[in-house]
Structure formats: structure tokens, C-alpha cells
């Protein structure tokens, strides 16, 4: 199959230059130096009429022939028609194929480069054993890379889990015999562990360290002070380490990962220092008792690991589009270790963060997530045989009527989530524009101190957020002695299940404390998310939802206890069994709020049911997630990540939104009327001319045309490549000076005198995507989304008219939505 197109191309490319040259000479003999500004349709029509019919038809044939070849990406044989010239020649120009900071990548071009490279390796395979080994290495390098990424992600997650749980408990006391153990581990084999706060004699609280008693007013004050001081120290360390070593480590990272995966370059965002500082910083931030979680940063950490390992394999390290396949897999591994949910991680990568997700990436993500979860599970950081603290196991059935409160939870969850997003965005915008943004470290410290001062008196906010979620998810069994389980039930009647019972005073008290905790957590998270330390959003949103769900669950349970014979309970509660599980409501509520905040649906439900280990609750979770998404979408358009992308003005073209306007490509393209398009000609410009154009303009790429008069398109060349190639030529080739001709063709013109020409055919993209000026923008936006274009060239009657870049598209979308188009900042 492959051989035939190759041969076909070779013939075309051999017959091609002669006729091409002839045409070109005709044009060149005419008016060589008259510049024609192509600014409006009228002008274009004039130009079209000047050309003879034969000339045009020849050109069109050739253009289509070129397209044919370029699309096959196979024509390096004979004629040397390559897009990138991967066959060892391109190595002489370092940096070709890379991108500058804050630029958008060209997926098509990178994927084409990879295909060329692949084909080259396949072809070389037959030559020698060594090449065969190289080919085999190339084939499995993707799997090896994701294996390494998975293993390292698991290890790093284990370190973070253990470190964070140890440091969190440092706020309360220390284990003098083995200082590396946290409270639970310290009291691991002690029979005297109390039920109220898990203390035992091996664990010394801070008052005890200072020879005080454990209870009383004085010790309480000492504990309080130590809690605040530790929180302050941890927060200060986190914020200053981030500021000093890796400012990119702040925040959750998911909006940026989304943008990067959609094809954007942020140099250093996934680097070594970011990895180290984010890992350390998130441990410190969680231990400081701030209202944040480590799950979102885990995705960022995993992506850093993916990026670092991809440099071991040139196939991925040197090709930005291919690298994003590894990053997608790494994101899946990140969620997999964050929630102990491998399948949920894969779906999260697919639904939420990834942009380009072929099946191959799906399998690799699956493998990567599996390896990471396995490694973390064998490290067993929490001593509960699971990779998350709040793993619970349920097997109680639910009644059909309960769907109504579940959907109600979804609605409330959507409202809370919208409230959170709106308030958080308002606060972030305020921080961005006001003087507050000048004091990033101070802000973190103030938030930490205020959080600690308010959180300590309430036992539900004092404890670690993950532990609170675990408590709320749990069923009230015999081993649970919290206020929440203070029902007036006795455990004497051993042969029946735990029966439903009236709420005792402890439950009432707990509900009030939980209401306060809900308000506090909501407010604290609004001020926390977005400050300049690592912070994730999953745990606080899960916590908000769990509190809300538990309260509703207790309400429904008491309803069932007091009125067991109402038809809605369909007799299930009349036997005295515990027919309502408040813990399940907590879980559904958690899913609802998280769904409303992030607008995830499928991956969220899968993550939640992997957390509970039961497929029985899929329907309640689905109902709540759906209701919450509907309510969220109705009240506010975007999820929190999209809102933050918009706030920062990242060039992210959302593939979920539709473009519903009737504009045409001609309305969007650059240059606008009365401006000229800067183009290069294929064989009539000197190095000096090209350098002048590079100096005078700021475009990131230039179309190459046959000549300024005809404006027939030859290809597209990137500014960066052009700069590099000229610099390289001046350094390495003799005789290249300002007067040298720059040739984008194969053959040099018959030239006897003057300096040697500079051949830049290698860096020319011969297959730029082109559209006509009458193409509806709907199609153009679709092309940008689905093909991952960086720019497209607009033609009219086969002649070049203008360029549409991704930024133009994004600005146009903004403009059409009546928003400020200048908020898109990057290229």
C-alpha cells in the first residue's frame, strides 16, 4: 500500500519543477517588483482577471498535486519533498520543530512529523539488526514511558500522603517514641485509645509535652496556640518556597493543564522545580489546615512527571503533540492515585482535561492509571489497604423514593457550586486587579491564621478535611462513637440488624456544628482557592457536599423513624430496620457539589463508586450529578476550571461549546481591510528582505507565495523556524550574506553571479490547511477544534487573501458572545 503513493509522488515531483519554473519565469519577467496589496475582494478580482487562463489552470493543477503529496506525507524519495526533513538533515538546525514560550502548537504539523519519523524507522528496520532493535524500542517506548510515569506517580503520591498525614498531626502533638508516626499510627497497637479524639498514652499532645494535664482550660489554650503557630509555619513555608523556587507551582494547576493539553506551551510549568515545590508545598498547605485538598495538584504533579520522563524518549520529548499523549495518561494517573480510582482517572482525563484523545492514548492512560494505583496501594499510606483515607464500603439497599431527596441534593449542590464559583471568581478578579495581588505571601499567611483561629473551636473543622469526609461518609456502626452517631439505640438485641432510632442530643448538636462548618468551609474555600500556594478544589467541594448531604440524610432518617408508615417508604421502614443511611446521602451530596463545581458527570460518578466499592449506588449518584449539572449550567455557564481559564485569558478553544453565529472566514481573517498581508515569495527575496520583514512585523508565521503579483500559495513558514534557519545558515554556510536569495523551491534559478542562494525548503510547510473566504466560521471553528490547527490560510479564487490564527478565532468567539476580545492574551 505504501509503495504506490511513493512512486506516484516521485514522478510528480520530478516532472514538477520544469513546468513550475516556466510559469514562474513568465511572471517574473513581467512585473517583478510591483507590490500589490491584497486588501479587498475587488482587488482580488482585478488580479484574477490579469492572469491568463492557462497559467491559472496550470497553477491549480500543481497546487492540487502538491496537496496530494503533502497529505500523503511520503514524498521524501527522490525529489526530497519533505515537510520537515526528518531524515537526519533537520538535525543540523537545532530547535526546529520546537515552539516558543506561550505559543500554540500545530497538531497537524507535529503529527505529520511523527508519521514521517515512524515511516523512516519502519523503512530502516530491514537494514540491520541494530535498526531492528531501534525500531522495537521505538514501538514500545510509549508503554515504557507511561509505565515509568505510573510508577513514579504512585511513589510520589505515597510520599505526599504519608508526609501530609504526619505533618497534619504535628499540629496536635507528637509521638516521642517514634517521631515519624502520626497519631493514628502512634496508637496503632494500643488498647487504650479513647474514642473521643483518638489519643493514647504513647501520643503526647502539646500540653502534655509541657507537663500539663490533657484536659482543662490551660491545656486547651496551649493546644489552640500550637495549632495556630504550626498552621502559620506550614503556610509560610509553602508560600515562600513557591515564591522563591517555582512560582508556577501555585494554584490547582488543572486549568493550566487543560490549556497545555489543548496545545499551548508554558515553559517550565511542568518542570523539575515545579514538581518538587508543588509536592512539598501541597504537603505543607494541607498540613496547615487550610481549606484545600491535594487531589487537584496531584494531577499537576503527575503531568510534571510525565513531562520529565517524556524527555527520556525523543519520540515524545521532541514532539509537542506526541508529548501530550503522555501527559493525558499522566493526568489519568494523577486522579487514579488521588482517589484510588483508576477507571475514574481515565475517564477524568478523557472528559475533563484532554483535548486530543485517540484510542491509543486511552489504553495507555488505562495502563498508567493502573500501575500508579497499584504502586500506591502497595505503599499503603493510610494503613487501611486503600489509597484514600475516606474509602467506605456500603452494601445497604436504597428505596426508590430516596431518588427524590437525591435529586434535591443535586439541586442544592448545583446552587452551592454556582455560589462558590461566582464568589471565587469575583475574589480572584479582585485580587488580580487590586493592590491585594502585591502581597501574595501575606495573603496566604492571613488566610491560614484566620482559618486556624476559626476552625479550631469546631471539632468538625478542626480535623483534617479528608477525615471529616470519612466520618460523614461512614455508617453509624458499633465502632463509630462520634456525636453524629449518638442515637438512642441500644446494642442489646443482638440478633437483629442495627435498628432505626431517634436522634439523641449528640446528633442535634452535631447537626448544628455541621451547619456552622458548612458555612465556614464555603467561605474559607472561596478565599483560599486561587491564592499563591498549591491548592486543590476536590476535597473542599466533596466536604461541602458531604456536610450538606449528611444533614439532609439525618433529616430523612428521622422522618422515616417518626413516620415509618408513610406510603413513600413503601413499608420498608416499618419493620424497624435502619432503612435510611445518612452516609449515603453524604456521598451523593459530595458528588453533587463536586459535579456542580467542575461540571464533570461520567468520571465523577465512576470516581465516587470506585470510592465506595459498590455499583449499587450508581443511579443515585448519576441522578444527583445530572441534576447538579443542569442547575449549574442554568445558573452559571461555566465550571470553575473554564471560568479560571477565561479569567487568565488562556487560548483555550473549548470543544464542548458550540459556535452558533453566521459570520464568514472573511470577517475574521487578518489582515483587515486596508492593511497589507506580509508574505514571502518563494524565490525572489533576499536574506535582507526576509530579515526586514521579520524585524518589522510580529507575526508568528508567514505564507509563502509564488510571487507578489500572483499571490498563489506555496506554503507556510514559521517565524521561529525562519529565524533559526537563517541564523544557522549564517553560522555554518559560507557566502551567505544579505544579498543571498532565499529559495523555497527545489531548483535554484539560473544564476551565475552573486552569492549562493539559501535553500529553506526544509522548513517550509507545504501542506498548510487552506479555506476559502466564504467558508462559514462554524466550519472554521470546527476545524480548529478537531484538527488542532494553529492557523489556516484564507484563499479567494485560489489566491492567498489572509490568515486566521487561533487567537483570531478565540477573539471572534469572545466578540460574538459580547465579551471583551482583548482578554485573550497569548498567541
Amino acid at each position, binding site marked *: 500500500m505504501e509503495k504506490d503513493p511513493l512512486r506516484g509522488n516521485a514522478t510528480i515531483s520530478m516532472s514538477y519543477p520544469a513546468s513550475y519554473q516556466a510559469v514562474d519565469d513568465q511572471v517574473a519577467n513581467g512585473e517583478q517588483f510591483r507590490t500589490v496589496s491584497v486588501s479587498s475582494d475587488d482587488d482580488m478580482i482585478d488580479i484574477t482577471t490579469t492572469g491568463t487562463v492557462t497559467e491559472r489552470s496550470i497553477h491549480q493543477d500543481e497546487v492540487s498535486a502538491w496537496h496530494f503529496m503533502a497529505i500523503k506525507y511520503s514524498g521524501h524519495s527522490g525529489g526530497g519533498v519533505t515537510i520537515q526533513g526528518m531524515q537526519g538533515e533537520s538535525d543540523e538546525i*537545532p530547535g526546529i520543530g520546537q515552539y516558543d514560550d506561550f505559543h500554540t502548537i500545530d497538531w497537524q504539523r507535529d503529527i505529520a512529523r511523527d508519521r514521517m519519523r515512524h515511516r523512516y524507522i519502519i523503512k530502516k528496520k530491514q537494514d540491520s539488526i541494530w535498526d531492528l532493535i531501534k525500531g522495537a524500542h521505538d514501538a514500545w517506548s510509549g508503554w515504557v514511558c507511561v509505565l515509568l510515569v505510573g510508577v513514579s506517580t504512585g511513589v510520589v503520591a*505515597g*510520599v505526599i500522603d*504519608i508526609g501530609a498525614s*504526619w505533618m497534619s498531626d504535628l499540629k496536635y502533638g507528637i509521638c516521642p*517514641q*517514634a*517521631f*515519624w*508516626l502520626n497519631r493514628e*499510627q502512634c496508637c*496503632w*497497637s*494500643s*488498647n487504650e*485509645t*479513647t*474514642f*473521643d479524639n483518638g489519643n493514647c498514652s*504513647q501520643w503526647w499532645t502539646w500540653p502534655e509535652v509541657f507537663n500539663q494535664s490533657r484536659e482543662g482550660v490551660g491545656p486547651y489554650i496551649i493546644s489552640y496556640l500550637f495549632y495556630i503557630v504550626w498552621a502559620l509555619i506550614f503556610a509560610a*513555608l509553602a508560600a*515562600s*518556597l513557591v*515564591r*522563591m523556587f517555582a*512560582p508556577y507551582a*501555585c494554584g490547582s494547576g488543572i486549568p*493550566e493543564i487543560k490549556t497545555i493539553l489543548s496545545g499551548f506551551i*508554558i515553559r*517550565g510549568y511542568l518542570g523539575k*522545580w515545579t514538581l*518538587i515545590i508543588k509536592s*512539598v508545598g501541597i*504537603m*505543607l498547605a494541607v498540613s496547615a489546615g487550610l481549606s484545600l485538598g491535594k487531589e487537584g495538584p496531584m494531577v499537576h504533579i503527575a503531568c510534571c512527571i510525565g513531562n520529565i520522563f517524556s524527555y527520556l524518549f525523543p519520540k515524545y520529548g521532541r514532539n509537542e503533540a506526541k508529548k501530550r499523549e503522555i501527559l493525558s495518561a499522566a493526568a489519568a494517573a494523577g486522579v487514579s492515585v488521588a482517589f484510588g480510582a483508576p477507571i475514574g482517572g481515565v475517564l477524568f482525563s478523557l472528559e475533563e482535561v484532554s483535548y486530543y484523545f485517540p484510542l491509543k492514548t486511552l489504553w495507555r492512560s488505562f495502563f498508567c492509571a493502573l500501575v500508579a494505583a497499584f504502586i500506591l496501594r502497595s*505503599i*499503603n499510606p493510610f494503613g487501611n*489497604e486503600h489509597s484514600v483515607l475516606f474509602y467506605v464500603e456500603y452494601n445497604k439497599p436504597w428505596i426508590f423514593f430516596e431518588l427524590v431527596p437525591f435529586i434535591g441534593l443535586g439541586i442544592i449542590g448545583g446552587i452551592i457550586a454556582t455560589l462558590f464559583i461566582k464568589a471565587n471568581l469575583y475574589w480572584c*478578579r479582585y485580587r*488580580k*486587579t487590586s493592590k491585594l*495581588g*502585591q502581597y*501574595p505571601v501575606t495573603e496566604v499567611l492571613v488566610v491560614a491564621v484566620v482559618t486556624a483561629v476559626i476552625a479550631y473551636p469546631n471539632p468538625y473543622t478542626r480535623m483534617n478535611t479528608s477525615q471529616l469526609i470519612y466520618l460523614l461518609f461512614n455508617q453509624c456502626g*458499633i*465502632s463509630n*462513637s462520634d456525636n453524629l452517631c449518638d442515637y438512642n*439505640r*441500644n*446494642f*442489646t438485641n*443482638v*440478633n437483629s440488624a442495627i435498628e432505626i432510632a431517634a436522634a439523641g442530643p449528640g446528633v442535634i448538636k452535631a447537626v448544628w456544628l455541621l451547619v456552622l462548618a458548612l458555612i465556614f468551609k464555603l467561605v474559607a474555600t472561596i478565599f483560599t482557592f*486561587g491564592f499563591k500556594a498549591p491548592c486543590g478544589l476536590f476535597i473542599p467541594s466533596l466536604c461541602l457536599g458531604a456536610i450538606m448531604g449528611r444533614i439532609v440524610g439525618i433529616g430523612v432518617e428521622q422522618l422515616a423513624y417518626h413516620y415509618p408508615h408513610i406510603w413513600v417508604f413503601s413499608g420498608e421502614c416499618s419493620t424497624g430496620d435502619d432503612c435510611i443511611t445518612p452516609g449515603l446521602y453524604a456521598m451523593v451530596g459530595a458528588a453533587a457539589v463536586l459535579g456542580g463545581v467542575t461540571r464533570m458527570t461520567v468520571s465523577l460518578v465512576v470516581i465516587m463508586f470506585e470510592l465506595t466499592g459498590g455499583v449499587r449506588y450508581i443511579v443515585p449518584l448519576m441522578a444527583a450529578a445530572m441534576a447538579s449539572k443542569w442547575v449549574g449550567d442554568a445558573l452559571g455557564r461555566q465550571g470553575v476550571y473554564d471560568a479560571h481559564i477565561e*479569567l*487568565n485569558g488562556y487560548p483555550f478553544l473549548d470543544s464542548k461549546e458550540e459556535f452558533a453565529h453566521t459570520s464568514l472566514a472573511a470577517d475574521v481573517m487578518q489582515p483587515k481591510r486596508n492593511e497589507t498581508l506580509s508574505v514571502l515569495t518563494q524565490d525572489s527575496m533576499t536574506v535582507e528582505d526576509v530579515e526586514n520583514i521579520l524585524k518589522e512585523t510580529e507575526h508568528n508565521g508567514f505564507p509563502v507565495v509564488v510571487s507578489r503579483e500572483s499571490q498563489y500559495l506555496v506554503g507556510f513558514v514559521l517565524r521561529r523556524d525562519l529565524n*533559526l534557519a537563517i*541564523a544557522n545558515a549564517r*553560522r555554518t554556510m559560507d557566502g551567505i550574506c544579505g544579498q543571498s536569495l532565499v529559495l523555497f523551491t527545489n531548483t535554484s534559478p539560473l544564476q551565475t553571479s552573486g552569492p549562493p542562494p539559501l535553500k529553506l525548503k526544509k522548513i517550509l510547510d507545504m501542506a498548510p490547511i487552506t479555506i476559502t473566504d466564504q467558508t462559514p466560521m462554524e466550519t472554521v471553528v470546527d476545524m480548529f477544534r478537531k484538527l488542532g490547527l494553529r492557523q489556516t490560510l484564507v484563499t479567494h479564487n485560489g489566491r492567498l487573501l489572509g490568515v486566521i490564527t487561533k487567537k483570531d478565532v478565540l477573539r471572534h468567539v469572545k466578540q460574538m458572545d459580547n465579551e471583551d476580545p482583548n482578554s485573550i*492574551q497569548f498567541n
Partner: protein
Amino acid sequence: MKFAYILVLVFVCEVQAQSYEDVRCKCVCPNPSVVNVTQSNRKLYIDNVPPNKCTCDNVILPQVGDEIKGKEQEFCPRCECKYESRNTSIIKYVVIIVIWIISLLVIYMLFLICLDPLLNKRMKGNYQEHTNEEEEASGSSSTGAAAGTSSHPMGVRANVLNRVGHQQDKWKRQVREQRRNIYDRHTMLN
């Protein structure tokens, strides 16, 4: 908590001797007196037994057998036994590594804040030269290392130090750029 009092059980078993075991069987039961009286006090029993022996029959009854004599079948269904394991040596090494990393980072940060400006001030003369070399290197976009070797014909050690310093400067420049993006211009990560 009013009902969660703990009855200290005096075992003469290995649990007490080796304080930090890696496995445990943790059982939570009502107070043995519940079989007689209506109350919901709880008690915790922890023992180090193989996983298949982690049941009420094997852990609880030997200890409290005489208190609930004849009512074992009523008492045991009320107990929750869970077998758990952990790895203390992993925890130990991880925590120590974490402490090391944090201390190193803090020391390096203090060094950069306090000493580095002083050192830089002293080496101002050298510094000038350094920047020139860098400009030259970036201007011609050469590999940089080649330029370094040619302009500094010193010993290998100096060369290595130089390269480290070069890398460090490059990294510092990048961090400065990141800081400008985030803290001053607020173009990213708001």
C-alpha cells in the same frame, strides 16, 4: 464523650512489648456488661493475630470469656473486627526524607535570600563578564557550553563550577520571569 470510656485491659501479650507492630486485629465491641444491662458503651480490643484468626471468637472471647459466659452468641455479632496492616519502616524513611527535603529547601532559600546578594556584590566584576558571555551565547543561539569552554581556559573543576553557575543563572532568570508573570503582571494563575 460520655459513653466512650475505655476499660484498660491488662494483657500480658506481645502487643505491649513491641509497641509498633505492623499488623493488628482491631475489634470494637460493646462493653461486656451489655448482655445484662441496656447501655451502649464500647470497648476496643487490639491483638496481633493472623488475618484468618481476626474474629470475635479468637480475639475477644479469650479475654472476656468469663464475663459473658453462656452469652457468646449474643455478644459476638455486635463486634466489628478488622484486620489492618501497615509498614512502619516505609513511613519512617518517607518522613525522614520529607524532613530532609524541606530543610534543604529552606536552607537554600535562606542562602538565596541572605548570602547570595552579598556574594553577587563582591563578584560584580566577574558578573559583568558573565552576562556578556551569555548575551553572546544567546545571540548566536549556539550551544553555550562551547562558548564557555573557549572563553574560560581554566581547569576542569573551574569549568564544572562555571557550568553549574551558568545553569543556576539560567534557572534564576526563568524563576524571575515566572515571578514577573504571576506576581507583578498577573497574567497567569490568578
